[in-house]
């Protein structure tokens, strides 16, 4: 596993890019919908995370012919996809363990 700490916003950004490439605004909206408006990213937070993910090689820019500087799309790289899968696997293990530990009493 790569060493980049995966916070909830970063995880949601990666999940947003898991299906298809998205622009900044589309990522913001998708993160908001996925988290039921619990996680509202500012543009500063979003682009800080995108810069780090680009630097770590987890995502890349999509070179679109009609893409102006204001509408740049991003997508997961193979490395980002692999790390996301590992993170999801990790979370599954954690939730499975948690479900055993906090099972409703009397069942």
């Amino acid at each position, binding site marked *: 596993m790569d060493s980049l700490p995966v916070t909830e916003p970063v995880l949601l950004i990666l999940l947003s890019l898991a299906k298809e490439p998205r622009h900044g605004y589309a990522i*913001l909206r998708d993160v908001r919908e996925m988290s039921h408006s619990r996680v509202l990213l500012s543009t500063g937070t979003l*682009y800080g995370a995108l*810069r780090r993910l680009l630097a770590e090689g987890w995502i890349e820019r999509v070179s679109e012919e009609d893409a102006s500087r*204001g509408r740049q799309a991003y997508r997961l790289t193979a490395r980002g996809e692999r790390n996301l899968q590992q993170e999801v696997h990790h979370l599954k293990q954690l939730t499975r363990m948690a479900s055993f530990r906090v099972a409703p009493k009397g069942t």
Partner: protein
Amino acid sequence: MSCVYRFLLQLYPSAHRHEYGEEMLAVFREVQAETRGKGILRTGRFWIREVLGLLGGAFEEHFRSLMGSSYPPSIFLRRPIMRSEFRFPKATATLMTIILAAVVMAIEKATAIVNSVPHTGPHVGPIQPAHFTLFPTLLVILTFGCVAGAIGWAVAFALHRTGVQRLADFNPSGRQASGGR
């Protein structure tokens, strides 16, 4: 309102601003258009979020550019997850015990030296500030600073290393106690 945003963007390092500035502004305008007409509370929250996000982001980018690649990817983690709780590492406790023992031993040694010196000579009054010259004083301060810095770095390194290793070794299922991760 975009001019306020543009002004706050100036707080970012120029490299970041050139690479992401226009894009950030475009996204901001889209979010602003979406928020328009949805009440003063929501607009207020939007502005607070954006201003704080920009201030925090600018500070983080400047800090990163100062620290270079050794800078941990994020010190402004919002809602961190998968983090083991902080525990005082054994390595740091050992280090601090050694430092404490060394300080106690140094004090005892100094006391022994003072007691062993006969007080038969002429009376020497308290050391006057005039006895200090600039260069030795600076040297002592510099040496003290270096030693304090080295101890601080060692403690920080021990904390960081222990935390990272614990996070890497974290296995929620507990099935692979000696797993190859």
